C-alpha cells in the first residue's frame, strides 16, 4: 500500500516520498540472521512512532543446508502512519540475501514492488541449489519489479576490512549492512541497533564494531548511491497511537508475564512443568529466568510427566502450569482428565502449530479447538480460552489463572505459532490496576462434624475447597476413581456418578455467568453478516471488516476469547445476523461448535497452508456472502 501523498526534504536535500504504510520482507538463509535483522528493524520502527505488526517465518531445521529453498528464513513487517492490523498481505519490498530467498518469496511481492538482491551470492552453484534453471538477474523473471542489485557481500567485506575479522565472521555482518540500507530507505535511527550490538557482543568488541561499521556503510550507500530507477528514500508519518509507554512484545513473552502476573494476583507460587517442543519452548525459557517471581520451572522427561508434575504442584498448593503444542497436548490428555475429576486448578497452554502429528512444527494453525473442547475420554469439561494477539496473551494469561483458581478447574489456553513469535507494540499496563484475586485455602476451621469434606461445594460457583498438604486436620485422599459427592471417598455407586458428572458439567457451564458478555468489535449488533473469529485471525478479520464497512457493506466483526463455556449472549447475538462467516486456520472447527450449540447457519472460511489469512482473502469472502444483495447497504 505504498501511496505517494507528499514530498518532504531530508536535511541533505534528498527528497523523500511520503507513504502511508509499507510491508517489508527480509529473506535469507537460516544462518543469515534475518530474524535478528527483522527484530531490530521492528524496534527502530516502533521508536519512529509507526504502528506495526510482524510475521517471523522460519524453517523447522536449525541450519538447513546453506542455499537451499527449505532453509530460507523470512521476517515480514508491516508499518505505517495508520493502525496496522496484520503483517501485510504482500510485501512492497523484498530483501533477498541469496537465490533461494528470491525463489521462495518473489511470487508474494506486490506487482511493481521493490526487490533488493545481494548479487554476491548469485553464483552458478547457489542458483542451481535454489532450483533456478537460468539466472533470474539475466532473464525476465524480475520484469515488473523495481530491482536493486547490489553486491552486499563484497561491500560488507570492504566495510569491515579494518576490523581484521576472518572472512566468515566478516560476511556475517552483511545482515547489518542490509539493515543500514533499509534504515536509510525508511529514515530510521541506527543508534538503538548500534547500542544493541555493543551489548550483544560485549565480549567481542571487534565484532560489535564491525557490525556497526557494516550498518553505517549500508546507510551511507543509500545516501550516496544513485539507486536504480532513481529510487529515493521514503518517510512514514507517525501513527495516531494512544499516548503512553510502549514496548514490543511477542506472544510468548506476554503469556509468560501474564501467567506470572496471574499467579501473583492469586497469591500463589507458580510451577511450570514443560517439555521442549516447537513453538512452545520459549515460554519455558522465559519463565525459567523469572525465578525471583516465585516461579519454579521444571523441564520434565516428557509431556506426560510435565502435566502430571503440574497437577502434583496444584495438589500441593501451587499454581500448576504446563505448556506445549498440539502433539504434546495429545499426550497430556489422560492426566488432564484426572485434573477434571479431582478438580484441581491447572493451566495448559497450547501454542498451536500445523498438524496432525508432527505436521509443520514452525508453521501456524489453529486446528486444536476440537482437541481443547472435546479431546478427552469421557465427559471431561474444562475451560478453553483463546488469546487474539501477541499482547492479548498477557490479559488472557491472567484470566486463565483467575478461572482455574476460582473454579478449581483445568483451563486450556490457546495461542499459536504465529502469535507466539510475532511481536507487536504494547501499551504497557499498570500492574497495580489489576484487581487481585487471592486464593483462600481451606483451613482447619473448616472441619465439620463429619471431618473435612474435600467435595463440599460452594453454592454459587460449585467449586470445591482447596486444602493443601501440611494443613493439620484436613488430611484427605483424592484420585482418579469416581469420588463420592462430599467426602471424596471412592464410590462405585451409579447415582453418585450421574450426580458428579452433572456437577462437573454444571460448574463449567456456570462460568458463562462470570465472563464478559460477547461484544462486537466493529459494526452493528445485528445485520446482514457477522464475521466470527477466534485467536490470531483477529488482525486480518478486523482490517477486512473495516475495509468492507468503509465501502458500505453491512458486516460486523465478533471475536471470541472465551471458547468454552461460550459467552451467555452469543446465541442471541448470532441470531441477529442473516449470515455468519467463520474464518479459521483449520478445516472448520469453531464453525461446527457454533452450529451445534446455536443451530445457526454459520459458514466456514478455511485456510491451512501454514500462513496467516490475508486481508483480501477475508474481504473476498465477505463480498461473496453479501453479493447479490441489492440496495445501498450491501
Amino acid at each position, binding site marked *: 500500500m505504498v501511496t505517494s501523498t507528499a514530498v518532504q526534504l531530508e536535511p541533505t536535500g534528498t527528497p523523500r516520498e511520503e507513504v502511508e504504510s509499507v510491508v517489508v520482507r527480509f529473506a535469507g538463509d537460516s544462518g543469515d540472521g534475518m530474524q535478528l535483522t527483522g527484530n531490530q528493524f521492528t524496534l527502530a520502527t*516502533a*521508536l519512529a512512532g509507526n504502528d506495526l505488526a510482524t510475521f517471523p517465518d522460519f524453517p523447522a531445521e536449525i541450519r538447513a543446508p546453506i542455499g537451499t529453498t527449505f532453509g530460507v528464513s523470512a521476517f515480514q513487517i508491516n508499518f505505517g502512519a495508520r493502525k496496522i492490523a496484520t503483517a501485510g498481505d504482500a510485501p512492497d519490498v523484498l530483501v533477498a540475501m541469496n537465490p533461494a530467498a528470491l525463489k521462495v518469496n518473489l511470487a508474494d511481492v506486490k506487482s511493481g514492488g521493490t526487490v533488493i538482491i545481494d548479487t554476491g551470492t548469485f553464483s552458478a552453484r547457489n542458483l542451481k541449489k535454489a532450483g533456478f534453471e537460468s539466472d533470474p538477474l539475466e532473464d525476465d523473471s524480475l520484469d515488473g519489479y523495481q530491482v536493486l542489485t547490489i553486491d552486499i557481500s563484497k561491500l560488507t567485506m570492504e566495510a569491515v576490512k579494518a576490523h581484521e575479522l576472518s572472512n566468515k565472521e566478516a560476511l556475517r555482518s552483511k545482515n547489518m549492512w542490509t539493515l543500514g540500507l533499509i534504515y536509510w530507505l525508511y529514515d530510521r535511527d541506527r543508534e*538503538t541497533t548500534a547500542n544493541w550490538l555493543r551489548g550483544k557482543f560485549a565480549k567481542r568488541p571487534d565484532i560489535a564494531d564491525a557490525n556497526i561499521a557494516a550498518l553505517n556503510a549500508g546507510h551511507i550507500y543509500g545516501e550516496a548511491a544513485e539507486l536504480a530507477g532513481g529510487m529515493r528514500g521514503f518517510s512514514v508519518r507517525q501513527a495516531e*497511537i*494512544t*499516548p503512553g*509507554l*510502549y*514496548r*514490543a512484545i511477542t506472544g510468548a513473552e506476554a503469556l509468560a*508475564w501474564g501467567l*506470572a*502476573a496471574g499467579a*501473583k494476583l492469586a497469591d500463589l507460587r507458580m*510451577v511450570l*512443568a514443560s517439555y521442549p517442543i516447537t513453538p512452545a519452548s520459549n515460554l519455558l525459557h522465559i519463565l525459567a529466568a523469572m*525465578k*525471583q*517471581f*516465585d516461579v*519454579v520451572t*521444571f523441564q*520434565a*522427561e*516428557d509431556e*506426560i*510427566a*510435565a502435566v*502430571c*508434575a*503440574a*497437577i*502434583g*504442584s*496444584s*495438589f*500441593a*498448593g*501451587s499454581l*500448576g502450569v504446563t505448556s506445549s503444542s498440539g502433539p504434546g497436548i495429545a499426550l497430556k490428555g*489422560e*492426566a488432564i482428565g*484426572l485434573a477434571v475429576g*479431582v478438580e484441581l486448578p491447572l493451566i495448559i497452554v497450547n501454542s498451536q502449530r500445523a498438524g496432525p502429528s508432527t505436521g509443520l512444527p514452525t508453521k501456524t494453525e489453529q486446528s486444536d479447538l476440537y482437541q481443547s473442547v472435546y479431546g478427552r475420554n469421557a465427559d471431561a469439561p474444562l475451560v478453553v480460552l483463546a488469546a487474539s494477539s501477541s499482547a492479548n496473551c498477557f490479559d488472557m494469561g491472567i484470566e486463565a489463572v483467575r478461572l482455574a483458581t476460582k473454579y478449581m478447574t483445568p483451563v486450556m489456553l490457546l495461542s499459536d505459532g504465529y502469535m507466539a513469535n510475532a511481536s507487536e507494540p504494547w501499551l*504497557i499496563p*499498570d*500492574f497495580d490496576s489489576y484487581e487481585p484475586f487471592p486464593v483462600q485455602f481451606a483451613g482447619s476451621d473448616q472441619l465439620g462434624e463429619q471431618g473435612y469434606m474435600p467435595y463440599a461445594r460452594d453454592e454459587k460457583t460449585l467449586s470445591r475447597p482447596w486444602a493443601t*498438604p*501440611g494443613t*493439620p*486436620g484436613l*488430611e*484427605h*485422599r*483424592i*484420585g*482418579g*476413581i469416581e469420588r463420592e459427592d462430599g467426602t471424596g*471417598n*471412592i464410590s462405585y455407586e451409579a447415582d453418585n456418578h450421574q450426580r458428579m458428572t452433572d456437577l462437573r458439567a454444571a460448574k463449567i457451564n456456570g462460568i458463562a455467568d462470570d465472563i464478559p458478555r460477547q461484544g462486537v468489535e466493529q459494526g452493528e449488533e445485528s445485520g446482514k453478516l457477522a464475521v466470527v473469529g477466534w485467536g490470531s485471525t483477529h488482525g486480518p478479520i478486523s482490517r477486512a471488516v473495516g475495509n468492507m464497512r468503509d465501502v458500505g457493506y453491512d458486516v460486523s466483526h465478533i471475536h471470541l476469547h472465551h471458547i468454552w463455556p461460550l459467552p451467555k449472549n452469543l446465541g442471541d447475538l448470532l441470531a441477529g445476523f442473516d449470515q455468519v462467516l467463520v474464518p479459521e486456520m483449520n478445516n472448520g472447527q469453531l464453525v461446527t461448535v457454533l452450529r451445534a450449540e446455536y443451530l445457526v447457519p454459520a459458514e466456514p472460511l478455511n485456510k491451512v497452508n501454514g500462513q496467516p489469512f490475508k486481508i483480501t482473502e477475508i474481504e473476498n469472502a465477505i463480498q461473496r456472502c453479501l453479493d447479490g444483495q441489492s440496495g445501498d447497504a450491501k
Partner: protein
Amino acid sequence: MNAPAKPTALKAKDFASDQEVRWCPGCGDYAILKGVQKALADIGTTPENVVFVSGIGCSSRFPYYMSTYGFHTIHGRAPAFATGIKLANPELDVWLVTGDGDGLSIGGNHMLHALRRNVNMQIMLFNNEIYGLTKGQYSPTSPLGSRSPSTPMGSLDRPLSPVLFALGANATFVARAVDTQQKHMPGVLQRAHAHNGASFVEIYTNCIVYNDGVFASFAEKNTAADGELLLEHGEPMIFGKDSDKGIRMTPGAIALEVVQLGVDGITEDDLLRHDETNRVLAGLLGAMRNPDFPVAVGVLYCEDAEAYDAAVYKQVEAARSSNGAADMNALLRGGATWTVGG
C-alpha cells in the same frame, strides 16, 4: 540425616484411615501397609506433613488406607506427580507406592528420571512379578517363560531386576525388603526416609491369587535363613540356618560366590564385608538369585548427594537475592521501551 524421633503419641494404627481395605484376603499388601504404618509411628511424624502418591494397580490403592494426605493418580505417572508435589512444597514428606507393572512398564520412564534427579522421597515398589488388578498377565519382572492369560505358551521377553534398574538410573539409595518380614521392613523404610534424595525400596510381595508362592524359596519362615542374605553395612556377609555360609569375591574374577565357613580353611576374614557406598558391589549383590545365591535384602546402596528439590530452591533463592524483590511493573518496563506523546 536421621530426623530426631520426637515424642509423639501416634501409634501405627493412627496412620490408618477409616476406609475399608479391599485387597484380596492374604495379599502381601496388608503386611506392607502394617509395616509402613509402624515405620511412620517409629519415625515420629505427623499425618498432615505426609503425602502418599500412587499410580494404578493393586498396590496403588495404598493411599486410601492411610490417614495422611494422599493422591491416587494415573497409571505409571506417580513419580511425576510426586516430583510436582516436591517442587511446590519441598517440606512435605512424600511416599510413592507403585508396582512392577506401574513403576517399570508403563511408568518406567518416570521412575528412571525421578531416580536420576534424586527427588527427595521414598519410592516403594511392590514387586509381585504379575499384573494383579487386570487379572494375571505377566509383568516386566516375571521370569522368562511365565504362563499367563496373555502368554499361554510362556512369556518371551526377558525380565528386569528393579534394583539393578534403579542402580543403573543412578539412584542414591537402593534397598530391598520382603512383605512377610515385619521385623526387618520398618527398619529399611526408616533408613529410606532418613536418606536425603530418592530412596528406592523394592518390596517382594506375594500375590495370593495370581502368583502365590513365587518368592517361597526365600520369603517364608523356613526358607529365609538359607534363601536370603541380610545386608548390614560393614558386616561380613554371612547367612544360613547355622550362620555357616558366606559370600566372597571369586579369586581372579569380578564375581561373587557362596562359600562354606570352615571348609577349605575359609574363615570370616575371607568374606566380603558389606559396603553400601560401593555401587559396583551393590550391582553384584542385587543380581544374586535363588537357588545359586541367597537373595540380598536390606540397604544395597546409599550415597550422599544433593536432592533435586533442595537444589531447585537454592536457585530460586539465588535469583531472589541477585535480582532483588520481584516487581511486576519493573519487569513489564524492562528492556527497550518508548513513549508516545499525548
